[in-house]
């Protein structure tokens, strides 16, 4: 009985340990998605492609073992990518900022639909003007700048200085009231 219990516990432990995402690489379906994302179009003589940092994020996500893409999903995503490219091509825009408001909305809708195929959610942060893709609430891709703020935040520093100035003023007023300067 004890042995059986031990066996069950071992199996459970192994199952939990292997739940973390091991790298499965890119199978044919995942590769099809990557190939679709890598496609380029020529607009007004200029080649338009997905920026390499976004492509890399897609590749890193798809390499995860807990991510599976079926053939139907891959085909569907590839179709959405193609319609996004068609939209950009017909608009004549070479960057996202060149698109009109309605074209941007349409593009975002296509991105949302493509993400939904792979059970991903697209969220916009209007305060930062960024779009992120989440899987189970966890970030898997974002168009945030690659370089982050790696110094002390200025507003924190400014507030700190403000508090220091306030404390000094308080001390000065208290000292004057106590007639320490006389």
């Amino acid at each position, binding site marked *: 009985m004890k042995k059986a219990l031990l066996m069950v516990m071992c199996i459970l432990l192994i199952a939990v340990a292997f739940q*973390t*995402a*091991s*790298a*499965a*690489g*890119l*199978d044919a379906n995942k*590769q099809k998605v990557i190939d679709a994302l890598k496609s380029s179009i020529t607009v007004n003589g200029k080649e338009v492609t997905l920026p*390499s*940092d*976004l492509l*890399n*994020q897609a590749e*890193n996500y798809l*390499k*995860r*073992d807990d991510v599976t893409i079926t053939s139907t999903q891959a085909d569907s995503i590839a179709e959405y990518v193609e319609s996004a490219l068609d939209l950009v091509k017909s608009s004549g825009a070479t960057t996202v900022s060149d698109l009109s408001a309605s074209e941007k909305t349409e593009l975002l809708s296509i991105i949302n639909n493509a993400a939904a195929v792979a059970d991903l959610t697209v969220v916009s942060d209007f*305060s*930062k003007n960024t779009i992120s893709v989440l899987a189970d609430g*966890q*970030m*898997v*891709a*974002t168009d945030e*700048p*690659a*370089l*982050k*703020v*790696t*110094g*002390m*935040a*200025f*507003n*924190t*520093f*400014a*507030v*700190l200085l403000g*508090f220091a100035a306030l404390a000094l003023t308080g001390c000065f007023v208290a000292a004057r009231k106590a007639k320490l300067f006389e």
Partner: protein
Amino acid sequence: MLYFSLAPFVVPVISSMNLIISESKMDHSSRLESIFKDGNDLENLEVVNEKEIVMPTYGTHYARLEIKSASVSTDLYFGDSSAVLKKGVGQYIGSFIPGCGRPLLVGGHNNSAFNSLQFVKKGDIVTITTNYGIYKYKITSTRITDHKDKSAYDLSLQKEQLILYTCYPFDTLGLTSKRFFVYGDKISGPAIVSDN
């Protein structure tokens, strides 16, 4: 010098301030996951199959980064959120983990994990220890440039280039628009291979 002499008093106050005022929604994901296990016997591996690798998810501590000559020794996370940068250094998720033969972009704070980056010299060795291999990179150059200068890194490169960065100047209080970059080329560590 001013920062370090004031740090014991300033840092607790700043942390408290961060609780009161914040420029963005409060991030409660400060309990970051770790998949890193130190002490593995990984010397002299030449290749590793990708099936043996646990791919880190966003905000996961997966490696250790050291530059002995400059006394840099810190945890390396996949993802570079503010929560990550408080704990160690963070890899941009649009760059690749060691062994992929592609660029690796890592940022860290200039007043903590990457403060000693200012002491690195050309030829110094950066060691990244992961669960699947030990990677060494030889520093080839350093550069100071604006934070909007995209020529400072090329993530489409088909070469394993290590790019470390932090805010510059190093001992400045407040935000700076400059970044200090350190570039290194891989000199050893197992290449990740695929069955496909």
